[in-house]
């Protein structure tokens, strides 16, 4: 908490003070929240152990719906993981100045979301104790994974994405680490010396010399260029888990762009949902303000329109194909046993985001928060609808069946949110939540400075 207003000095100084000042020093609210999160996590951990001990039957998945909320969560969290790299890499390449204050948090979110998503393929394994069969490891029987299986592609796509995102995030942090290190230079308390040591190590000997800056900027640019295709590829690969299958409702060429758009959509929504309480709690209202939400709103609107178009295109292509089984599947999706989730999906993902056409709404932070929460809910349900309704209503009518999640699945789902927030909370108190360097750059380049809401921007 920036408890004391810093004396007016240079803007640069203020930026460092504000951002670094938000670190450490947890108050009772922070501690309570962490305690609650740990409690939820323990419960979810218990549920997971229970499931491992007694079998997957403790989850609600059944014949014929073999994938349920676990895979829903997996796809949802991978989707959330998209905004970070999109904001950092793609917007960086596009020179969108407004990204500077949100990219750090968004990237952190990416890392944590991948960490969350990565758990679900394990949680959903029938025999988790053999999870390593999925990896190409040397063994005396020369058994390899099946490289034709999209699940193996997933394994590589996600691990690559995680590695690159982590490196990219870390490269952005290097100058800021040095800033923090410098702030503790010459401090005498043991704690401060420790911090200096830690951040100093993480800063990799950053001195801010011209040479370093030159190399750093080039490296960052290349990293952005490498990360950019991943934004598109990861969720494409995830979507192929479904598109490569012959299940009606899954088997569709539109899935890759549809999933990528959806991922960005949900990712932006999650950035908004998280950043609004976060800027308030850390006192960074000047840094993330109406200007940023306006821009994120536009991005959300765009992706919402793409997602809405994809919904429509799916129905159109199904009708146009004339395949009665697929038509039946899609009709049932809308009016069958899961019409509730379907209605939530359409309302939250297509109808509500239409409000974002209004500039006034985009600049109303409270409304934006509400909309973003709806979008998060809608996107979770989108994945649920795609996975569950398709499996429940496949080719053989005699084998149709329904699925209801069990307490184990719901506990673990709630636990996944706790897990994600847990890491995010730690992040908020240990690493600069806003890129100090880039904010200073913006100020120096006169693009934007803290408190500027760009009211007159078109």
């Amino acid at each position, binding site marked *: 908490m920036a408890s004391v207003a810093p004396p007016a000095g240079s803007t640069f100084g203020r930026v460092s003070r504000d951002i670094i000042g938000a670190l450490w020093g947890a108050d009772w609210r922070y501690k309570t929240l962490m305690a609650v999160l740990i409690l939820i996590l323990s419960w979810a951990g218990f549920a997971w*152990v229970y499931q*491992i*001990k*007694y*079998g*997957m*039957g403790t989850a*609600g*998945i*059944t*014949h*014929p719906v*073999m*994938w349920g909320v676990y895979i829903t969560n997996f796809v949802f969290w991978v989707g959330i993981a998209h905004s970070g790299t999109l904001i950092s890499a793609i917007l960086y390449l596009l020179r969108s100045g407004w990204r500077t204050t949100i990219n750090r948090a968004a990237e952190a979110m990416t890392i944590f979301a991948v960490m969350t998503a990565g758990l679900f*393929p394990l949680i*959903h*394994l*029938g*025999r*988790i*104790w*053999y*999870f390593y*069969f*999925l990896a190409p490891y040397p063994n005396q029987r020369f*058994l*390899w*994974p*099946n490289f*034709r*299986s*999209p*699940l*193996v592609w997933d*394994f590589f796509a996600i691990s690559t994405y995680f590695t690159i995102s982590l490196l990219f995030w870390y490269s952005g942090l290097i100058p800021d680490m040095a800033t923090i290190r410098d702030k503790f230079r010459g401090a005498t308390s043991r704690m401060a010396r420790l911090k200096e040591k830690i951040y100093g190590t993480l800063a990799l000997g950053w001195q801010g010399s011209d040479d370093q800056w030159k190399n750093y900027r080039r490296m960052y640019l290349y990293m952005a260029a490498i990360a950019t295709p991943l934004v598109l590829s990861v969720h494409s690969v995830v979507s192929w*888990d479904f598109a*490569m*299958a*012959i*299940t009606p409702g899954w088997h569709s060429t539109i899935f890759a762009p549809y999933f990528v758009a959806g991922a960005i959509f949900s990712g932006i929504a999650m950035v908004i949902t998280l950043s609004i309480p976060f800027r308030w709690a850390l006192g960074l209202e000047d840094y993330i303000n109406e200007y940023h939400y306006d821009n994120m709103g536009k991005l959300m609107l765009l992706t919402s329109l793409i997602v809405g178009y994809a919904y429509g295109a799916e129905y159109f292509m199904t009708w146009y194909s004339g395949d*009665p*089984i697929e038509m*039946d599947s899609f009709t049932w999706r809308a009016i069958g046993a899961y019409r509730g989730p379907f209605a939530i999906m359409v309302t939250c993902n297509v109808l509500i985001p239409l409000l974002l056409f209004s500039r006034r709404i985009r600049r109303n932070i409270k409304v934006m928060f509400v909309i973003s929460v709806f979008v998060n809910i809608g996107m979770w349900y989108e994945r649920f609808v795609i996975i569950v309704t398709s*499996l429940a209503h*496949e*080719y*053989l*009518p*005699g*084998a*149709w*069946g*329904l699925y209801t999640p069990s307490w184990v699945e719901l506990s673990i789902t709630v636990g996944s949110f706790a897990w994600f927030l847990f890491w995010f909370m730690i992040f908020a108190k240990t690493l600069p939540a806003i890129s100090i360097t880039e904010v200073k750059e913006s100020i120096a380049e006169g693009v934007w400075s803290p408190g500027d809401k760009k009211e007159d921007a078109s």
Partner: protein
Amino acid sequence: MSDIKRRDFLKILGISGAGTGLVGCSQEPAQKLIPYLVRPEEIIPGIPNWYATVCRECPAGCGVHAKVREGRPIKVEGNPDHPVNAGRLCARGQASLQGLYNPDRIQSPLRRTESGEFEAISWDDAESLVAERLATLSASGQADRVYLISDGAVGTLDRLFDEWMSAIGSPNRLIHESFDVEPLREANRVTFGLADIPRYDLDAAELVVSFGAEFLETWVSPVQYTRLFAESHRFRNGQKGHFIHIGPRLSLTGANADEWVAASPTGAMLVALAMTRVLVTEGRAGARGAAIRPLVEAFTAERVAEAAGVEAETIERLAQAFAEAPSSIALPPGIATSHRNATAANVAVNLLNYAAGNLGRTVRFGPNVVRRQPTNLARWTEAAESMRSGAVQVAFVHGTDPVQTLPAALGISEALDNVDLVVSFSSFMDETTARADLILPDHTPLESWGDHEPEVGVRGLMQPTLNPVFDTRATGDVMLSLASRLGGAAASAFSHTDFASYLRDTWRAIHRDHAPQQAFDDFWRTSVQSGGAWRSAGTQAVTLNPAVAGVNFDEPAIDGDASTPYTLVVYPSPNLYDGRGANRPWLQELPDPVTKVVWNSWVEMHPAVAERLGVSNGDVVEISSPHGSVEAPVFVYHGIREDTIAIPIGQGHEHFGRWAQGRGVNPLALLPAAADESSGSIAWLSTHAAVTATGRRIQLVETQGSYDDRGREIAEVISLAAATEAEAHAAEEIEANPEELVETSQDADPKSPYRWGMAIDLSSCIGCSACVTACYAENNIPIVGEELAAQGREMAWIRVENYYEHLLEEAGHGESSGGTHGEDAGDPTHVVHLPMMCQQCGNAPCEPVCPVYATYHNPEGLNVQVYNRCVGTRYCANNCPYKARRFEWFDYDFPYPLNLQLNPDVTVREKGVMEKCTFCVQRIMSARDAAAHEGRDVADGEVTTACAQTCPAEAIVFGNLRDPHSRVSRLTRSGRSYHVLGELNTRPAITYLKDVSRGTEEA
């Protein structure tokens, strides 16, 4: 940093590592195999021995082979040489193993103590207790106060019972057979002067008109009749028999009819009479007509139409068809429609057969069914009265459960309570045994010596297939021992001390009868080996008995008044029979062939009735008759008349073990103690009932999602004409290119001599589901119970899907082929049974998606599943369009001694792995090994799957698609062949042959 010491760190690491490991450690620890120290001569580990014996699950007496591995029977299969079932077996027969290995068996003699609990006693004490009591009675000249209640099977044990009872001096033997055919026997006596049950040659009949007999499920000899029926009714060479079912409800049998005439519950008799009249008046009956004309003169089609609930034109049409058919059979009413005038109804059907000249042609006396005549209701009532009055001192009960299977109104339960000493020989704590004072558990049939004569000339011989599992004793031995303990006349009546030698000596007479030229020892040995002795019985000439003129064809009385609007039909459950199958989890979990409901009772009602009452599937209703009331969930069924409701018999046990007790209802509580007036047999159709909604609701567990194939061409039907044309064309093709291989034969290693495949003829399949239970037995498939089945977690590798559908365009019908169209089902009279299992696709969707190669294509074209490699992503199941894959959601229990049944050749899967039909790969392997030893390939017919082996209708044919002359290759090339969802290019190894519809207008 210095807070954690290195040692502490290692400790924490160790503990947390071990903890993580422990979580997944519920796998069974490896167990050592211990070789025989001295190997029994006949046992080679890994090689099964086969013992011939007789299935005693119902009175049909099918011959079976028990497959015995390392001293344990693990599977029973039909005895191919046996004249009754010719190698086939029904689900109940397959489940006899779960009688043998039932954990709820009575494991030793039990005596009821003062407190009402049972306590174990020794055999010696138990026998002397009975002997003392008998001696006391005998001494006081009260031996006639001893009763013996047993089933109606004819054999040596029955003979022993007779001799024993006369030796102690009691005439009181009561015979109870839940589903008897006494009305038919009596009708035959009245009509033809022969008190016998003839053979109905369904295989020789082109037109079968059934007036209700449930011959495909429970009536007389279901496996035999299924085989014979399939023989004539399946499509072959442009021919297909015609089957018309007349009755208020579509049973499994009725559901296989080409036409359903929904006569009123008591209307069958009138329809038969009116049909006979048409034949007689139109001179179709020839000289025979004159004799019966006066009997049927009054029953014009117009007159009976209203009471029978069938239009006059329909009756005329049926009669014409019956007269014109080159060969025909009219089958008598079955159990469900056996009413107070059932004998007359049977006479009516006899007259129809007589008029059509079927006697001696398709209805043959001679190879008669052999059953002891059961005790009639009047005698039961009298016996119950004696028991209530305390006049009965000792009652022995063997092989039957009268408390459960006689109408509650008869009061057998209370009557037995007043008997001083009730001795039960039952293997299970059934309803009667629960009221016994002493239980002397018999061996189960698979542990016993014995014999059984199901029909004239057929004598099945039973031999023990293993040492008794528990401390049980053969009832024959007990009776002999009691006789010797009694001493005096009783002891001197018997020269044997054990039943086995008594049996052997009984067979000396059979020896003289069957093979007098053979030495007895040889005869005995071959009989034991082959499962009995049989010879064909000649056909007996039949003449009309003049006494038939006196038959009164009055409408039978049905209890109830205006407050009870529905006629109550109670019918034998195809799975549970009279309830004796209720403690076999395989049978409880086997979906009812008609409703697909598991683990429960239900009340069937027409959709219009359900709508009137505002109820739907699962709503609990109270059914009340003037004699009692029960509560059961509703099952909405198109195949039942609007004025009728139906409840299956078989559930509603208070005792009878963990799987049976407290499950469903026993509809016998609703029935009066009423009988057919002439034969004294129980009148099952005797009361009306009222239905009121209770407002409660339960989940009625159906294993099928939807019954409508939605035009997806999953269950295909074509018309007779189209089938004939297509088959003729295909036959030409086959003749022109006899060596051509079917296309799907390619989907295996080019060097492999095999591509295993299967052909399933839907025009043969009757939906009985014997294949399902055979698969459970062969492949160690676990039972999940009602709660998990409700979640869709049943584990069946093969299931029979029922699709109700409109006839296809080709058959010349629009959508107006009758019946009411519900929201989820087509025409109820046209159900197609589709056995569905892994299709062993050549281009299998499951294979590429598995990340670890747990499922892959083997060189012989099978999709094999490697349990050890499976991690359980379940992607394969999602991608299987046939939904043939099953997942081990839990580790399932096989409570001792049920685990002794497990097939050692098949892995018991652990939680978290995927499984599915393997085409019984273990059977293929052993056949291939056997052939390899002889340096040749496996010949056609040498190996078959468990489902194909048991199929009573021979609908499933398994074999090698790379052999162009194999049966399966020929069938695959049939003009009716198609692949389910073939448009997905999955290239299934299973070819279905389309069902063939005759259409109604040809009748």
